[in-house]
């Protein structure tokens, strides 16, 4: 991502200034306003539902809606993290590694029992966990373990952010190599074993009525930070043009660093929900999730060029993705057909993002 690229101010960011710009918006044709609006994604979602309804048995049944919700919440948290980084003009490819890493370490801390035959060769055996469980394997310990997971996610984000903002390395390469390191470390930590026997109090998080308020609260906080806080304004400005932002007095390096830290934290929160859902800390958690995350963010209007995106849009992008995947599953399509469709959808979303950027550049 070229932080120095010159780009005009974009929509999807902080509230637009008043005066002539507001008048210009009002004069824009409906299709253009729709293209920039979060409603576009909502409309797409409704079209998909209507299109698939005759073919996807049970799409709107209460049970299926609950399934969609349980698929939605953890993915939303991860996409929120990616949104911060994308708005800053970067990208975080290490989210899948952070997912697995925090899943495994959280599970090691929380497990209520561990089989020595499987884990005795783990370097953390006898330190973080043993045959009687993890050091935090009790009621209150679950909350602490969550905090540790978030801290670990923040730490990896800090490393990514430091390399990108201070050293000036390309985000793509930094986060890709972080993925290699963290994945290897995760596999080494448990010798590739899943960590089982998680406390019931923790796995209960997988139910929608607990996961939902957690995800909603987090999303609201993220939305407020992006749209109302000084940091949010700085983030957009950095993503639009980092050089200009720096000249204006914005601490660009700190802004970018914080974006990656937040990405790590939100990813760890997503890992907590996925881990509860699967009932185990898995060193392979999220291995195939990266394209879903980036695809959902882009579909939701978060620009790969930086400087544009909203939490509301990202959430709608996640909804679209989850509904689409669910609908295609219910149609009984082969998994590779589903992958083709998802690939086409993501490609289309990127195309729309490019079109949006060009239209803005012209205007």
């Amino acid at each position, binding site marked *: 991502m070229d932080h120095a690229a010159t780009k005009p101010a974009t929509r999807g960011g902080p509230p637009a200034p008043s005066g002539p710009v507001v008048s210009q918006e009002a004069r824009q044709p409906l*299709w253009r306003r729709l293209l920039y609006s979060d409603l576009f994604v909502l409309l*797409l979602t409704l*079209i*998909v539902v209507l*299109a*698939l309804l005759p*073919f996807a*048995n*049970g799409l709107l*049944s209460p*049970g*299926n809606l609950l*399934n969609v919700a*349980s*698929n939605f919440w953890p993915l939303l948290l991860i996409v929120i993290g990616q949104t911060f980084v994308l708005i800053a003009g970067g990208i975080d490819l290490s989210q899948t590694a952070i997912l697995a890493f925090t899943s495994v370490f959280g599970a090691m801390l929380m497990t209520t029992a561990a089989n020595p*035959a*499987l884990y005795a060769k783990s370097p953390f055996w006898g330190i973080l966990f043993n045959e009687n469980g993890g050091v935090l394997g009790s009621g209150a310990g679950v909350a602490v373990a969550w905090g540790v997971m978030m801290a670990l996610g923040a730490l990896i984000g800090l490393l990514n952010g430091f390399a990108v903002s201070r050293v000036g390395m390309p985000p793509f390469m930094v986060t890709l190599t972080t993925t290699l390191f963290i994945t290897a470390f995760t596999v080494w930590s448990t*010798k*590739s*074993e*899943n960590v*089982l026997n998680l406390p019931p109090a923790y796995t209960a998080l997988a139910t929608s009525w607990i996961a939902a308020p957690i995800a909603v609260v987090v999303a609201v906080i993220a939305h407020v930070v992006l749209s109302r806080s000084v940091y949010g304004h700085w983030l957009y400005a950095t993503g639009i043009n980092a050089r200009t932002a720096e000249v204006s007095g914005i601490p660009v390096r700190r802004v970018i660093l914080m974006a990656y830290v937040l990405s790590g934290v939100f990813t760890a929160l997503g890992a907590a929900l*996925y881990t509860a*859902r*699967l*009932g*185990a800390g*898995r060193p*392979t*958690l*999220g*291995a*195939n*999730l990266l394209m879903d995350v980036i695809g959902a963010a882009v579909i939701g209007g978060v620009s790969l060029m930086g400087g544009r995106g909203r939490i509301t849009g990202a959430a709608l992008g996640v909804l679209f993705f989850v509904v689409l*995947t*669910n*609908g*295609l*599953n*219910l*149609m*009984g*399509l*082969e*998994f*590779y*057909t589903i992958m*083709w*469709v998802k690939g*086409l*959808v993501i490609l*289309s979303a990127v*195309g*729309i993002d490019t*079109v949006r950027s060009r239209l803005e550049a012209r205007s």
Partner: protein
Amino acid sequence: MNKIWRVLTTGFCLTLVTACGSVGGNATPSSNATSAGGSASAGGGLNINVEAGSLAGKTICFNFQALETEFWAAGKTAISEALTRAGAKVLEFNSNEDANRQLEQIQDCVTQKADGIIFIPQDGASANTVISAANTANVPVVAFNRPPADESGKAIVVVADNRGVAKQTVEYMVTVAQKQMAATGKKLQPLIMVGDLADVNAVDRRSGYFDAMAGHDDLFQKSIEVETKWDATTAQQNLQSAMQANPKVDFVFTSSDFMYPQIQSVLSPLGKWKVSGEDGHVILGGLDGDNRACGLMKTKYVDSTGVQDLLFEAEKSISELTAAIKAGETAPSKKVLDPGFALTLANMDTKQNDMWGCVIEPPK
């Protein structure tokens, strides 16, 4: 502007058409099985006994992993075809080794009001998660060939006696080793290629190997364990490293037959890919009983193969599920053990047709 609209509209319609173009689901057996052998469908010899129409009007969800070995490909084909012959509407899902995707697909099966579920677990932990989801939805479920990590859920578990079969296989290899030592006076250097120890099958096969090796310290050096994670690339790399460090290895047990190509590619350049009886032959054994293993036994590169009775397991999976559905059981709990057997160069003439890999058509 008009051009942009045309492009966007066309792209979106193309996307939807691609999805809607495959309407109808998989009510008939899929022919897209992928395997190491590359065959689109494993042909003759995979018909298992199933009562025609026994599942008429029922919807059965069949969830499997990526079919990277002959065993899984053949198992998938056998089960799919048998379910269709039984008159069931089959919903097939490939979770591509993703535990989270498998859970989502099982939930989607429940949404589509499946009457029963047969699934191949990714591992023991994910098996428990799926079984729990099926139990909550009151849908009878069968775990095929891979057991759950624990018995907290209620399911019909059809699994081979991996430990016993591995022990039988290695016991024959030990008898060959005894003859070799008698001739040379030298201890042998054994090596075991271990599967993914998150998979109970891998754990049991390793245990069976060591059961057979116990008490033969006079015959063998300490066993070298090569980790494979059930992955061909990992297996080859680690075996290469092990052979580099221990060139005198002359006794190899592989926890799964699918790794024979990797073993051959490592042993061949070292001049160790020899048939039984030839000077320098590495005593070789494996487990599964696939078509490749059959071929290698016929050409005497492999001394002994532990056979999972694939057809027995597939037949039992369907018959037990059918019985549970007919009895109205929503959470049947049962373990069906496939005793298996060891096919060796000594009993090859009489028992080779009991091995499924010798019965199916070889991959094209």
